[in-house]
Structures are given as C-alpha cells and as structure tokens.
C-alpha cells in the first residue's frame, strides 16, 4: 500500500526535475529567425547573465570547438535529415508524413522504418515501435539508458543542443519567439520534442554518449579568450576616446527655422544620409525607431498577405490593412494574373513527367534571361511603378492614436517649432537573388520595409482631432504643417515620398525637398561606393549603387549595418557637425522635455536593446564567421525556405554571411567593437533608470554595452564602470 502511494510521487518528482533540466538547457540557446524576417540577435544571448569575458569562454567551449566525437557527428547527420524534412515551409512537394502531429509524433512514427538506424536488430525495432507518446517520458528513459544521472542531465541536454546550434536556435525561435500568424503553425514543435528526438538518435547511434560530457570538460579547460578580449578593449578605448572628444567639443546651437523636418530610423545607415540631406538646405533631421512607435501588423489589400511590423520585443497591438490609393481593381487583376502565371509554372515544375517538357519549352527563354542578368545586370526591362497606399486606421481607437502621437513626438523631442513639412521616413533595402535580403531591412519593423508604419503615424498626426488632443497636451502643431511618409531605399539611396493626399500649399516644399533628396542621393551613393572600395564620381556612383540593387550575382549589394559601433541618445545638434562614418545609431532625445525620465527609460530598454542585438550579431559574425556567422554565400544552400545550410547539408547556419562583414575572405570590414551608448542627459536621471531596470544592470554590469554620459550642465563625459559607478573619462 505504501509503495503504491509512493510511486506516483516519485515519478512526479522525477518529471519536475527533468522539466527544470530541459528549461535550463534551452536557456543557453539564442533564437534564430527564418529568412523571411531575419532579426539580428546576440548568438550568446543565453550567456548574457555572465560577464562578457566569461560568456566568451563559454561560447568558445560550447560553439567553437574545432572537432566533435565521430559518433556524435552521425547523430547530427540523422538529426539534420529529419529536421530538414520537418521544418520545410514549402520546398518539397511530397512532405514528411504525420508532420501535422508535431515533430516528436512524426519522428516516433517514422523511425521504425529508418533502416539506417537499426541494422538487423529486432530488439531495437521493438523498442522503437513501443515508444511512449509523451516526449517527457522518453527523455528520462533515454537518459537512463545512456547512464546519465543527476546534475549531468542538464549539462548533457545542453550539449545535445549546442552541438547543432543553428537548428536548436531555429527551434528556440519557433517555441519562444514566433508571434502572430507564425505562432499557430501547421506543424507544431515543442522544446521537449526536439530533445527527445536528439536523445533517441543518440541512444541508437552512440550508446556510450556519456563521453560527450568529458569531451566538453576538456573544451572548457582549454577555452581561453584573453588576447581577443584585450585587443578588443584597446580598439574600443580608442574609438570611445575619439568619439567622446568630438562630442564634448560641440556647441549645441539651435539653427534657423527649417523648411522641412525629416524623421529617420535610428539605423546606422540613416546617419550618413541625414548628413547628406542636411547639407542641401535648411533641413532638420531626427532619429527614431523605424516602426514609429506603432506596434502593428500590416495586411496588403491586394495580395492579402500580412506580417508583424514592429520590434520582436513587442506584440502587434493592431491589425492594419493598407489599400492602394488608385486603381485597386486593376491592381488586383494584375496580381491575380501574376498568380495564375506562377501557378502555371509551378504546376508543370512540381509534378512527374511534365518538367521534362517544361525544361525544353523554357530553355531558350532561360538562356536569354540568364545572359541578360549576368552580362547587363543594370539594365531594366520594365520600370516597376510604385503607388501610394493608405492605411485603414479603424483598428486603432482615437485614444490610442492620441497616445501614439504624443509618445512619438515626446520621445523624439519634436514638440515645438514644427516646419511646414514633416517627413516620417522609414527604410528598406532592394536586392536580387539574396537569401539574406530581410537582414538589410528595418529591424524595428521586424525585418521588413518601414513605409507602412510611417504612413500610419503620418495619418494619425494629420488627423485634426488628434492634433486637438495634442494641443491640450501642450504640443501645438500649426495648421499649415503637414506630415508625409517616405521610404529610404538603403541600397540605392532613393527616397520615395508618399504625397498623394498633400494639400496644395505644401507642394512647393515637397518639390524643393525632392530635388534636394536627389542631390543627397548622389552624395551618399558616392560615399557608400567608396566604402565598397570604388572611387567614383557622383553620377557614376548613383548608377553603380542602382546596378548593385538589381544584380542577381551581387553578394554585397550594400554594407548593411556593418561597422556599427555606437548608440547616441541626444539632440541632433550634438552630432550634426561630426562625420560619424555611418557607425552610429542616432536616437533623438531632449532631456529637458523628459522630466520623469520615462522617454529615456523606453529608449534604453527598447531601441538600445535592439541595437545591442544588432551589434552583437555583427560582432560575433566577424569574430568567428563559421561558429556564429553563416559562412560564404557562394556555397550556401537554402533549406525549407527558412534558413541556410552550407553545401549538401549542415547545421542551420544562423548569423550573417561572410560577405556581409568581410571585404574579402581575409579582411574584415566590420570592426568588432561592443556597443558604446552615449546619453546626453544628467547623470542622476540615468542612475535612477539603471537602478530600476534589470536588463540595463545586466548589459552594463556584465560589459555587453558600455555606457557613457555627457552631462548637459558641465558638458563633461563620464563612463559607467562594471560596478555601475561613474568615472570621468
């Protein structure tokens, strides 16, 4: 009787312990977003609780080991095979059976048929045929079989994840970060599913896998990162000293009344372009997170497709549909036509027998098209016409609209002195045949183009009722002032202005701005061409960047956010006279308008954290492009439409490709520096914020980000030490 009672309790206890071990093992894995919206992440995000140096050492032992025990490689090979099949989002026509029941159920059903795993052993086959349905039961069973007990369990589970880090990272994304439509997936996966699969394969292929623990101990012992860190320290100090010296010598003079104000994303690529447009006339520019403070998902009325368009730290709060402003019907018809054409092609390509005829019928056309795209990449056969869109704001209530308006204007410090024209400028890239295309788009918009969000905020701020509310809040927008949306093409430096519903009296400003944007484009294209290693005159540079955007063979269409190094929070006047070399995230901030520090809190806990993710992604992809980056583009292979493998099959290569951070195979273009945040605000206010925010204590205290402050009173620079004490720089 007593025994009977005790048993369930024991099982219960064991289960709980295993739950904790599972959770702990997954905490080491950073997420990896799929290709359709590549979000920069810190590949060592699982070790951010540790001081930077210690995290580097751990990272080295877990992810950078040159070799792996041979039987574990077999386990990896079989894991990759099943994961490729399971996580396929539309490559294969004949898909993995039973996928809709989830990863573990599908594999549990299929493993007994896999003769590569159990050559001529009926005992194993019987075991496979009678596996428990619950992965949480399989995990302890397998651990027992492998004789891994107690404390070792968590470590062993971690190693199962870190020895195939890219795939684990994708599953981390699917199970912890996927949002919106991606959350309700047709093919569900749980964290325990994957560990159960790994353990099953390990039991089958490497019964003495306990040795992996010893292998890892060895790796930990020899992992040293001292010289790397000291070199990095030196470079960081140099950069910091020179930047702070420049910043503290600026006189913060307000310039004359501007003709137009332009708000750009904090993205480092905005900085050189802002400099270029400011040079053309009386323009004032601001930096603000590119989703313009509106957490939305966007639906395209023509295609019916929708996506989240806000930082991944937020969940979209509204679903906004965008309608084309003209010929909706003809656009829909065009879209349907294009779809039928694609259907025609796909129906012939993805079947038996018909591809033989398809290849013969399309051979000539493909040959001609291939020659054109390879020999004359810049030539465009048809000019794509862009049209203006109008968001339907019904899903955002009046109160919420007012809220978004007030918060956005306050946070960027634009509450008075409005110019007649205010441009909210999102950004996006334009590349061809580029698997990593979305890594060049707006991170604040969840790896998408930023124009829809700009259109939403512009529509809100043009709303008379909202302006009335703003007036009550002390923000007086003149009637003459008009907000328009725009999008900066970061590959060509073209700026598209969305001006369909602009009142006539603003038109002259827009015309002048259009001309000046053209000039700014020339100037910035020239500078960017030089960064790409080509000294060209302005016109040639313009042509060159446009060609890069259209070239299907181009592996470096633009440098993206490479060389990013600092995040500056303060008014533009602080940086306006300095050439920051496209290395700075610039967030506008006026400490005088933020008495309670709430704006600064938001800036440091949201945009700065995103900047740190981006910075870490570039940093680690540069330090070790194989372990943390995705290797060269020239041998890449896209699997399941979700990610990159190298060659025939490999780990899912998360991180940036070699070509995004290296000039060539040997010389990095990106400089591996940790993020330096500079805030132009009183020390005391910053201190108060840090002591209230755990994430900031973690990032600054563990040395992931260096914080510097320029005190507005004294104009003296201070630097926050690891013990969170300030010292004068």
């Amino acid at each position, binding site marked *: 009787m007593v025994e009977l009672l005790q048993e369930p309790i024991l099982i219960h206890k064991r289960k709980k312990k295993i739950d904790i071990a599972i959770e702990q093992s997954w905490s080491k894995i950073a997420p990896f977003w799929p290709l359709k919206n590549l979000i920069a992440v810190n590949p060592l995000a699982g070790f951010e609780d540790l001081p930077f140096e210690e995290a580097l050492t751990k990272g080295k032992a877990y992810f*950078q080991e*040159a*070799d*792996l025990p041979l039987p*574990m*490689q077999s386990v990896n*090979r079989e894991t*990759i095979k099943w994961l*490729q*099949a399971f996580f*396929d989002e539309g*490559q294969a*026509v*004949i*898909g993995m*059976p039973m996928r809709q029941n989830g990863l573990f159920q599908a594999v549990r059903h*299929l493993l007994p*048929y896999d003769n590569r795993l159990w050559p001529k052993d009926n005992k194993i086959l019987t075991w496979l045929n009678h596996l428990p349905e619950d992965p949480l039961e399989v995990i302890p069973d397998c651990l027992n079989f492998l004789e891994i007990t107690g404390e070792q369990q968590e470590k062993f589970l971690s190693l199962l994840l870190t020895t*195939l*880090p890219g795939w684990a990272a994708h599953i981390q994304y699917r199970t912890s970060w996927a949002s919106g439509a991606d959350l309700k997936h047709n093919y569900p996966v749980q964290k325990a599913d994957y560990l159960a699969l790994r353990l099953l394969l390990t039991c089958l292929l490497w019964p003495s896998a306990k040795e992996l623990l010893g292998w890892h101990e060895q790796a930990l012992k020899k992992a040293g990162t001292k010289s790397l860190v000291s070199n990095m320290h030196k470079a960081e100090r140099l950069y910091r000293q020179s930047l702070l010296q420049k910043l503290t010598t600026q006189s913060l003079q307000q310039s004359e009344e501007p003709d137009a104000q332009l708000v750009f994303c904090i993205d480092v690529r905005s900085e050189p372009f802002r400099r270029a447009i400011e040079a053309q006339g009386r323009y004032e520019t601001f930096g603000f997170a590119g989703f313009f403070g509106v957490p939305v998902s966007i639906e395209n009325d023509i295609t019916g497709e929708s996506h989240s368009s806000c930082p991944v730290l937020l969940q979209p709060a509204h679903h906004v549909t965008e309608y084309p402003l003209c010929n909706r019907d003809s656009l829909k018809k065009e879209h349907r036509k294009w779809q039928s054409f694609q*259907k025609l092609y*796909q*129906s*012939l390509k*993805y*079947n*038996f*027998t018909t591809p*033989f005829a398809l290849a*013969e*019928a399309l*051979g*000539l056309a*493909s*040959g001609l098209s*291939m020659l054109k795209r*390879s020999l004359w*990449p810049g030539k465009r056969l048809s000019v794509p016409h862009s049209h203006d869109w109008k968001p339907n704001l019904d899903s955002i209530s009046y109160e919420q609209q007012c809220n978004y308006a007030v918060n956005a204007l306050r946070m960027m410090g634009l509450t008075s002195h409005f110019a007649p024209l205010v441009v909210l400028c999102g950004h996006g890239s334009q590349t061809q*045949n*580029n698997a990593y295309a979305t890594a060049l788009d707006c991170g604040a918009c969840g790896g998408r183009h930023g124009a829809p969000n700009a259109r939403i905020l512009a529509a809100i701020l043009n709303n008379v009722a909202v302006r009335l509310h703003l007036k009550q809040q002390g923000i007086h927008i003149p009637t003459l002032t008009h907000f328009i949306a725009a999008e900066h093409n970061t590959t060509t430096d073209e700026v598209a202005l969305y001006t369909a519903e602009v009142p006539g009296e603003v038109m002259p400003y827009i015309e002048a701005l259009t001309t000046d944007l053209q000039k700014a484009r020339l100037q910035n294209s020239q500078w960017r061409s030089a960064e790409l290693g080509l000294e060209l005159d302005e016109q040639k540079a313009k042509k060159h960047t446009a060609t890069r955007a259209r*070239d299907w063979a*181009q*592996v*470096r269409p633009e440098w993206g956010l490479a060389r990013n190094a600092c995040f500056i929070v303060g008014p533009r006047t602080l940086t306006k006279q300095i050439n920051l070399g496209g290395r700075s995230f610039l967030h506008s901030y006026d400490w005088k308008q933020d008495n309670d520090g709430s704006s600064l809190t938001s800036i440091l806990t949201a945009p700065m954290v995103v900047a740190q993710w981006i910075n870490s992604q570039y940093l680690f992809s540069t330090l070790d492009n*194989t372990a943390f980056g995705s*290797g060269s583009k*020239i*041998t*890449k*292979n*896209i*699997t399941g439409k979700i990610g990159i493998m*190298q*060659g*025939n*099959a*490999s*780990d899912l290569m998360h991180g940036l490709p070699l*070509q995004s951070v290296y000039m060539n*195979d040997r010389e990095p273009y990106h400089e591996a520096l940790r993020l330096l945040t500079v805030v132009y605000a009183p020390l005391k206010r910053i201190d108060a914020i840090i002591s209230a925010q755990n994430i900031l204590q973690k990032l600054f205290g563990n040395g992931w980000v260096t914080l510097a402050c320029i005190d507005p009173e004294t104009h003296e620079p201070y630097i926050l030490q690891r013990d969170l004490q300030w010292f004068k720089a």
Partner: protein
Amino acid sequence: MVQLLNNIQLYFHVDALAFVMLLLVGIVGLSLMAFSSRYLKGDSRYRKFFLTLTALIASVFIMVTADHIVLFLVAWGCSDLLLARLMVHKPNWRAARASGWLAVKNFAVGWVLIGAALGLLYFQTNETSIQQLIHATYDPTILTIALGLLFAGAMTQSGLWPFHRWLISSLNSPTPVSAIMHAGLVNGGGFLLARFAPLYLETPKLLTIVFAFGLVSAFLGTFWKLMQNDIKRMLACSTMGQMGFMIMQCGLGLFPAAIAHLCWHGLFKAYLFQASGSAAQEKRLDLGYPPTLSDFAVALLCGFAGAYAFAVSSHKSIFVADTNFFLVAIACVASTQFALSILQPLTWKRITIAFFSTTLVGTLYGLSVFCIEVLVKPLNIMQAQELNSIHFIGLGVLVFCWMAVLFRRHGAQPAQQSDLESWTYVRMLNASQPHEKTITTHRNHYQN
C-alpha cells in the same frame, strides 16, 4: 612538329553536333564568367577559379570537337578533373573534399569504361578517328559489348542510377560550378551516345536497355526531387531525372530530340542554379488538386490539341506507331497539365483561352525541339524505332506517376498514414541523401 600542326585538322571534326555543344557551352560559360566575376568577389581563390574555369571550358571545347580517340579521351578526362578541381573550391572544408573525391572516383570509373569501349572498337578496326569508327562494321557481339561499356560510361557522367550518388553529393561546390556542371558536364553522357548514335541504331535491343535505364533514373530523380527540402539538392535530383529522360530519348532512337533536351535543359538548369538564392522568396501556391473529373476531361482535350500542335510543329507524325509517339504522348501530358491550371474554375471563356494557349504553347514547344533537330539533321541520327512493350511500360509509369500527384490525397493529411506510404517515404529519403562524408556534420568543419 610542323607535320603535327599541318595535320591538326585531322584530329578534329566539327559537325552539327559539335557546333550545338560549342554554342551551349559557350553561352553558359560566358554567362557564368560574368556571373562569377561578381559572385566570387573577395574570394581568396578568385584568380585560380577563373583560370580553372577557362581551362575547363577550353577542355570541353576540345572534347566536343575531338575526332581522334586519344585526344577525345584526354579531353574528356581533363574536363572531369578540372570540374572536380572546381568543386573543391574550399580545400580545407572536408565535406567539399569528399564531394570532389567521390566525383573523381566516379569519373575514373567512367573514363576507364569509355576507354575500354573505344579500345575495343579500335582493335576491331585499327581506326583512331571517331568518324571512321562510327561508320565501320563490327562483329555484333563485340559491338554490343563496346556500346554497353560506352553506355555505362555515359551513365557515370550523367549521374544516372546507379551512378547518381556523386551528383546528389556535389552541392558543396560554389553555385556557378553547380551551374556549369548541370548545364554542361553532366550532358557528357547524352553527347557521347549521340556521337556514337549510328552504331547504337544498329543495335535496337541495346537501345531498349538504354531506354529502361533512362526510365529508372527519370522516375527516381523526379521522385526524389519532389521530396527534397533544400533548393540545391532538389535541383540536383531534378537533373538526374532530366538526364534519365534524355537517355530515354536516346533509347527511343531519337538522338536529335535528346540533344534538344540536353541544350534546353542545360540552359534552364543553369538559370535555376544561379537564381537559387531566391528560393526562399518563391511562394508555393495552392494548385487546386485534385481537379474534378470534368476539369480533367476538358484539360485532356486541350492536351490533345497541344500534342497535335507539338507534333505538327516538330514535324512528327502521330499516325505512325513508332517511338515518336512517345514524345507526342509526353507533350500531351504536359499540355493537359498546362490547360488544367488555366481551366480552374471551368468557364467557357477559360476553355477558349486554355484551348488556344495550349495549342500555341504546344507549337512553340515543338518549334524549340525542331530547331535543334534541324541543326543536327545532317548527322542522320533521328531514327524512330518500333514501339515495344518496354516503351509502353515506360509511358505507363510516367503517366501514372503524373496522375498520382494530381489525384493523391491533398490538403489536411490524415492523422494516420499508411505503413506503405511511411515506408516509401523513409526509404526514398534515405536513398536520396548525399554520401555521408560529404555532409558537414559538425558546423566548425566548414572552412571558408
């Protein structure tokens, strides 16, 4: 030396077949040179890559024009070695080395087989000129053995089952190398058969065997292609299937059709490899399977029209029961499929559109095949064979598989799958995996 130079034209023979191959390799080579000049920017082996690629193209030029068997064999071997050299672009990456090594072993087997075949023919005739060899008379047994060896060599080159492993394990190569491999070098098998076509046409029984082997690869390659989860292996398996079809065309005695297929597929596949970076952006659309029977019936009628148009424009008679019928039947399947995606949902307007566009496309398709056939007409290697039961089985397999994809269960899969389906899936998945040494089983084994 002077004499050698004087006689140099004796070692070469440029006929229509060589001309077509020169054109194909020239166009693909030119395009890939331009592509790679930007795609490989910054690569530490940039110069070496271009030198090797140039040498490869030159070597293929010599191979397709060579008339002396020794020159031919040397050029064939050189081309393959240069290709393997290009495949191992990253020599520190062990998986890439394994891919190259696997290819070299396969090519070596092929080279020995072809060498043996040419040796046999040489000892029978004492001729070293291929042109002389293909018009000589032989002892039938010896001829069959020689042509069998030659065919086996062709199979190694074209990645046909059972010599397919190297091809589907070859994707550790840079993208442009895959492109030239799939557009150029794997076609070597088809070229070889076409070159010796006059002899093959004398051995109809062997042609049927050729057809049967082609069918196996066409089936397996397409099946595997449909179940691959990554873009490049999908393309590789697809090539295997396409090569199978090309060999089937050879087996039907329709060598010019095989050459047409080789050219058009080469360009098509080269394009797809270069464009493989866009795979994630391609969204699969719901194709409305399974079609209703009335849709299918109307589509079939349009398909007949398309097939008829194909037959007329490619100058094939559909009223004679020879192997040309086979190609017309394939055109009929493709036309039906084409019409089907226009026909849903069924309206009179759509029926009209489907009918006319299918006829038009059938005509264009026929013309594209016909223009290559005209080019190689002087070789007189278009000799349709009598239809036999193997041909009908082959046609049956191809039509059945096509219909099976159309009409199989779609949409929400059942919670339980039949054992046979699961068994087939797992076995086929395993069979289509690359050689294990060519998989990067530990991330840090990848070496740039």
